[in-house]
């Protein structure tokens, strides 16, 4: 066996798949540092985009894995409010212990994920359509049940100190505890994708599902598991928001669909599947959050916010693609010293 450790030269670093994502992130950060002034770079300013990135990131990672495996889950747009409403109705409206609300919300996420996964696997209908169906189905079910059970679409929730500490408090007064859940999720998924057999399976499934199955990969089981994880992640974000904001609304969450997909793509995952990394998705989420929140620290008229967001995201993705091409097309000569 030859020396497996890559030599750390500039050329090798530049050809890492994450380099493009990182440069995209650095570009937008410097942009807002220049135009945003001292407040943007302060801890409170950092909290602005870290808090937004954290809840988005927890959802974006399993969505990214699904996209790497060649699938898509847009039912998360309903699962976020379903998670928060389930928790708020059980623990707020009925006054059950918060653990019951949390458990039920996660279980609901798992069940919806299971339904998504089974439908995708058994019917071979594209997952975009299947999850589009469950997106509306869950939204309708949620609204109907919420109105029948509580008579309203916005439910209060006063969580106890333990739940607040774990899921809904601000560290140092500004950083949401969700950031640590995001880090934990990233570490867990990073291990799964890059160091466990499941990682290679997921990448192989996105590359060519039929070959992957022929090679003995249990593609059905992995697909179903991934859908369950994305459902549970969305429910988790929902319930932690309910605990953090002391209330849950039926309608919140649709923007997560698009925002999560954007973060994943900015993070270098191919829309066609088969390529991507957890670190890249994390960087993509951070980029998206900085672009979205940084604007409020600048002196620009907020009417132009969407324009600037659009242009900066394009710049970030173009930079990413340029470097990914370099990374994919370059192969070091055998024995070459770079």
């Amino acid at each position, binding site marked *: 066996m030859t020396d497996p450790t890559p030599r750390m030269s500039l050329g090798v670093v530049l050809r890492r798949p994450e380099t493009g994502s990182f440069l995209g992130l650095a570009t937008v950060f410097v942009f807002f540092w220049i135009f945003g002034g001292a407040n943007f770079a302060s801890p*409170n300013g950092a909290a*602005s985009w870290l808090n937004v990135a954290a809840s988005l990131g927890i959802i974006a990672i399993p969505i990214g894995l699904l996209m790497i495996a060649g699938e898509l889950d847009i039912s998360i747009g309903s699962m976020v409010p379903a998670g928060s409403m389930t928790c708020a109705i059980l623990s707020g409206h009925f006054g059950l212990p918060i653990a019951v609300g949390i458990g039920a919300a996660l279980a609901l996420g798992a069940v919806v994920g299971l339904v998504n996964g089974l439908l995708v696997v058994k019917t071979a209908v594209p997952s975009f359509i299947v999850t589009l169906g469950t997106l509306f189905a869950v939204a309708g079910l949620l609204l109907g049940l919420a109105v*029948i059970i509580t008579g309203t679409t*916005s439910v209060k929730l006063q969580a106890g100190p333990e739940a607040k500490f774990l899921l809904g408090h601000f560290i140092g007064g500004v950083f949401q505890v969700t950031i640590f859940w995001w880090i934990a999720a990233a570490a867990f998924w990073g291990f799964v994708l890059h160091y466990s057999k499941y990682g290679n399976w997921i990448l192989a499934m996105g590359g060519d599902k039929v070959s992957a199955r022929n090679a003995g990969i249990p593609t059905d089981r992995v697909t179903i598991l991934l859908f369950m994880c994305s459902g549970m992640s969305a429910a988790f974000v929902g319930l932690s928001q309910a605990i953090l904001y002391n209330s849950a609304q039926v309608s919140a969450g649709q*923007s*997560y669909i698009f925002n999560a997909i954007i973060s994943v793509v900015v993070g270098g995952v191919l829309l066609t599947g088969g390529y991507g990394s957890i670190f890249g998705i994390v960087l993509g989420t951070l980029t998206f959050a900085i672009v979205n929140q940084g604007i409020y620290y600048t002196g620009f008229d907020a009417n132009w916010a969407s324009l600037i967001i659009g242009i900066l995201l394009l710049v970030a993705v173009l930079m990413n693609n340029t470097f990914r091409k370099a990374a994919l097309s370059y192969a070091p000569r055998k024995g070459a010293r770079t």
Partner: protein
Amino acid sequence: MTIKQTLLRLVVSTTALAFGATMALAEGKTVAVIGGKADDPFFAKVKKGIDDATLVVQAHGGTVNYLMLQNYDNIGGDAANLVRTAISQGASVIAVPNWVPDAQDEAIKAAQAAGIPVILYNSGGGDKARELGAINYIGNEEYTAGLAAGAYFATHGMTNVICVNTVPGAQNLEDRCKGVADGAAKNGGASNQLPLPASAFGDPTAVAEAIKATLLKDTSINGAITISAGDANSAATGIEQAGLTGKVALASFDMDGAGLDRIKAGTQLFAVDQQPWLQGFLAVTMADAYVNYGLAIASAPVLTGPGIVDSANIDATLAGAGAGYR
């Protein structure tokens, strides 16, 4: 409420749904109501008024057909399409909020040309109703509500107010923020709008952080008003995160349980209420009375707001909220 009662209500409402579908086939006047998503906490109360009014319509042998927007991405165009849907379904009378007059006026005129009277509710205003020849306008005048909010801020010492708009471009919300600005200006204050992009809509953290950043950037801001009750929950967190609780007064257009609790606790200054239940109830009953019996209220417009909910009347309001009417 016990689980048993809940199940019973589930069964009852499912049965009612099935009955409603059957009745739509029967003879009688059909009141078509175009409205917002029922999962929008505000429109849920309008819908409750519509549902209560449906009993009256049914007593007169008619039916109510609620045509709901699926989302608010293209609110004017979608509402105009729903008006045309109501025309093609042969509605006897149409109740519709005129959210984006430029997009909807044409469809409303088409309905009138087809001999279907139209009543405006929730959005549009009295002038628009008169211009279009609608039966009446029932609801809030957003600009007037904004004026009241701006004046309340300024007379209570908040002289630099931001109006947080999570759906910039919608006429009723623009009017609210313009009213706040004018109301504040008349009383020696000032107000600017903070429009948020669509990518923040529905993400409470994104809204909270945007408000926090704005407050940190401009430390002279001492008041914030949000265009919806849900956004006020985000704004409360944003103000707290900026370390400005007590320095930046919070207010909201419309209200929900968490907002009422804040007013009770003193962490929110006030809420501007437009009594949505009345809008839904009156729009449908008046449309029904007009199309069946030619009855019409002489006062025009019929204003259901603005009402200010603050520490002075919070207890009575909480009682109404408990019953699901506010």
